[in-house]
């Protein structure tokens, strides 16, 4: 089972490789660039690649949500934070020098290698049957029946987060 390059399966394989490359490249930019603005742009690129991965995992809805919430909301919030706090990492990154970079690379590499080895060496049981197809309709059905309690709790968490963010950022505003 080895599709040729120009067959539909081969082309989708090429697109998958491009998506994976975009994801990894975005993660590299997000963690190792010296300016925080570039690092947020790398994060957005990485999230677009992750949305592509979700698309390959047969979940259009979660891919769209990934684009809306992560790229559209979280990255913009972080960009606003950078504009308001004007951090300058360049001096510190060069002051702390090479040892810190090597150490962080080693720690991250150990984590990634251990997780990947654990995941690939384990024996996974494939299910005999699937009880539904995982379509958008099925997601909606189980969100509002099986998981309705968790759904409501998440909305309360979001409400508390909004109010808490306002309360924290508001205090001390007119003192300075």
């Amino acid at each position, binding site marked *: 089972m080895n*599709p040729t390059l120009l067959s539909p399966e*081969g082309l989708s*394989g090429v697109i998958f490789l491009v998506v*994976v490359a975009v*994801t990894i490249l975005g*993660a590299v930019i*997000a*963690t190792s660039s010296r300016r*925080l603005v570039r*690092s*947020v742009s790398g994060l957005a690129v990485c*999230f677009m690649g*992750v949305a592509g*991965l*979700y698309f390959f*995992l047969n*979940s259009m*809805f979660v891919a769209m*949500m990934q684009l809306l*919430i*992560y790229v559209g909301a979280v990255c913009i919030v*972080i960009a*606003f*934070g950078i504009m308001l*706090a004007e*951090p300058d*990492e360049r001096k*510190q*990154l060069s002051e*702390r020098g090479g040892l*810190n970079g090597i150490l*962080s690379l080693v720690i*991250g*590499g*150990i*984590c*990634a*290698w251990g*997780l*990947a080895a654990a*995941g*690939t060496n384990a024996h996974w*049981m494939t299910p005999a*049957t*699937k*009880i*539904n197809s*995982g379509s958008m309709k099925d*997601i909606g059905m*189980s969100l509002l029946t099986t998981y309705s309690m968790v759904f409501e709790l998440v909305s309360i*968490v*979001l409400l*508390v*987060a909004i109010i*808490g*963010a306002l309360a*924290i*950022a508001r*205090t*001390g505003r007119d003192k300075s």
Partner: protein
Amino acid sequence: MLTLSTQLNTYLIIGAVLFGFGIMGLVRRPTLIGMLIAAELVLSGASINFMAFNHFLAPDPTIGQIMTLFIMAIAAAEASIAMSIVICVYRNYKAIEVEELVELKG
């Protein structure tokens, strides 16, 4: 090489790599915002694992997608709270580098 998208291991390795990048960023970044960016990478690595197991192994293929949606909601809440804390810290210390925030150090 071209059939990689149909294997579970590919997604597990990508998730692990994103997690590793996130941990690396958490260790390496000197400011709070940089660490927040790295934490988002860790969360998205976890989401990829959920989605991969959901697609390949779960008998009910909605459960992983719902879990990923909840992770997204929690990540959005976390980002907004962390941002307001960063703004508050910046107002008080005029800096968001973690090495400057040592008032509680014994």
